[in-house]
């Protein structure tokens, strides 16, 4: 396998609210390799965005706090870096694209100002030069009339244009890792396709790794090399994108894939749903957090947390059903 760019080990992020401690991440392990696109998929509230925000340490305290684990990037544990050093990495080596492009730009500054700001900050360029670079970046993301867009305020542009500008801003310092947190959720389908195409294209030209967060398995299939399936603060299955669709192993993944309306009846005959609700993470179920909803649950599932078991090349599952397989 290629070199590891970023390695997350045992990451636990909790939110201390009035009603109790929300255990949002329950020990995440994830390696991101150089040049790959890795997807994180799961339903709302499963901890995808918290994982992303934990990586660049933007979990707001209070109420959120990263309590345990390590995130190694470039040989450094990001969680132990002083804030000043972390700020040098944000937007520079690791940058992020957010869900709602309409709200992610500051309404009172022009797009060009906001892109130039990050270039001036990390590349120590003069304003004029940075502004030129900003226009170059906008052109790079396929925006027609980049000079005009640079001079526009966010409210004057469409959602698709803004997301392109957001990508331009995120890529302007040539990051090694781009975290895209549901980059197309707020956009309509045609624009979504354009943005995804753009990201694919940019990945080949810049060579950056992408951590793509989405709840859309279709996007995962189209974009990613590998995928991690998340449930209630855990990654429950990690595999190459091909094998996850061909051989979904974790009962939750199977449920997810069955819940997509499809003509393929190999795994399931009718549109299925997963019974029950997402657990309250203040009082998460003991053992495997999925066991109350799992149709294959055994006694021990409610007592112990399953480890990682290998079910195929690069395909790991966190479920006792596969205990016979090799440990990761």
């Amino acid at each position: 396998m290629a070199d590891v760019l970023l390695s997350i080990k045992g990451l636990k992020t909790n939110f201390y609210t009035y009603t109790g401690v929300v255990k949002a991440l329950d020990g995440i392990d994830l390696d991101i390799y150089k040049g790959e696109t890795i997807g994180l998929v799961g339903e709302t509230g499963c901890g995808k965005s918290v994982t992303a925000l934990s990586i660049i340490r933007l979990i707001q305290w209070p109420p959120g706090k990263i309590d345990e684990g390590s995130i190694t990037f470039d040989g450094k544990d990001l969680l132990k870096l002083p804030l000043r050093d972390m700020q040098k990495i944000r937007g520079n080596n690791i940058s992020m694209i957010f869900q709602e492009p309409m709200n992610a730009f500051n309404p009172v500054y022009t797009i060009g100002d906001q892109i130039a700001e990050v270039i001036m900050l990390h590349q120590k360029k003069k304003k004029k030069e940075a502004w030129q670079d900003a226009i170059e970046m906008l052109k790079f993301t396929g925006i027609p009339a980049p000079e005009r867009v640079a001079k526009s305020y966010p409210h004057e542009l469409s959602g698709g244009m803004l997301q392109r500008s957001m990508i331009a801003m995120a890529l302007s310092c040539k990051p090694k890792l781009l975290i895209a947190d549901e980059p197309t959720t707020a956009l309509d389908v045609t624009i979504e396709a354009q943005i995804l195409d753009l990201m694919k294209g940019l990945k080949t030209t810049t060579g950056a790794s992408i951590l793509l967060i989405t709840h859309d398995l279709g996007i995962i299939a189209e974009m990613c090399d590998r995928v991690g399936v998340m449930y209630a603060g855990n990654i429950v299955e990690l595999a190459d994108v091909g094998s996850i669709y061909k051989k979904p192993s974790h009962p939750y993944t199977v449920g997810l894939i069955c819940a997509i309306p499809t003509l393929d009846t190999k795994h399931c005959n009718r549109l299925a749903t997963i019974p029950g609700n997402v657990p309250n993470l203040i009082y998460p179920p003991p053992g495997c957090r999925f066991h109350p909803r799992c149709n294959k649950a055994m006694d021990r599932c409610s007592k112990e947390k399953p480890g990682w078991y290998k079910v195929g090349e690069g395909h790991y599952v966190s479920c006792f059903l596969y205990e016979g397989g090799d440990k990761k």
Partner: protein
Amino acid sequence: MKLRDYIIRRILLLIPVLIGISFITFFLSHMIGDPAAAWLGEKTIGQEEAVKAIRAAHHLDDPLPIQYFYYLNDLAHFDLGRTGRNEGGRPVIEALKDYFPATLELAILGMGFAIIIGIPLGILSAVFKDKVPDHIVRVLALVGVSMPIFWLGLILKYWFSFKFDIFPLDGRLPYTVLAPPKVTGMYTFDALLAGQFDTFFVALRHAILPSFCLGLITLAILTRMMRSSMLETLTQDFIRTARAKGLSERKVILKHALRNALTPTTTVAGIAFGGLLSGAVMTETIFAWPGIGRFSVKAIGSTDFASIMGFALLIVLFYVLSNLLVDILYVYLDPRVKYG
């Protein structure tokens, strides 16, 4: 120019507002007594003829609506009528011209205090939400909002003038200092314009206690407003973006959050400025400050209708103008605001 048209339209809209205000003040003030008797004072006794003559000369025997039309007619010619005996019967407009700059000076300085102290305190409070600085600022703001002006004024005078003699007791200038040549009528500004720095400092020292006293409530309101709008802004997505770009917390707050949080605070400041002018009544009385506030108190005491109405109209005029100024400021604070 769209903005110019907007300003012209707003100024034209002032006319109906002023007519409305004149209507209300006219009828309200005419309920408080007989101006002819007040004009003559003690001499009224046994002088029925004189009172009658005055009533006839000033249309005071006519029905009120007719009197109102006389008043409106004069108003249309920029004639606000004549003052009562306190001012020796000179035109109201002249009296206002004399007294208003003093009040405006207090209001501007009071607003200065409110902005320079209130906004940073509000930011501080928001940034350190639920920590010690926030608690201190919140208590101070609450105290500031709840403090009665007349009490605060007396306390300030007691401590800072009487006990420690840091600031003068009252008035605008001591008798030994000549007023600077009149340009705006505001001594501090005129002294600066004339380059008389000694006079400037003397005038400023006189103005500090009353303007602080006047501005304190506004200061507290601005602090609370700034705190809440800052807190709201800090939860916005674009703040997270700014942090994700690697900006320092200082830049995130002072560049990205501040400008967005300023818009609601500016609105409040605009309304408060009008309030400062009318609120000067109490402060000016306590500090013997010769402004329109004190002028209006005397006018009310002597049933001087024309002066009361002139005062009310002037206050309304500045109230509307300061709100117009705020609306214009929006254009510069927030690019999403466009008029036309």
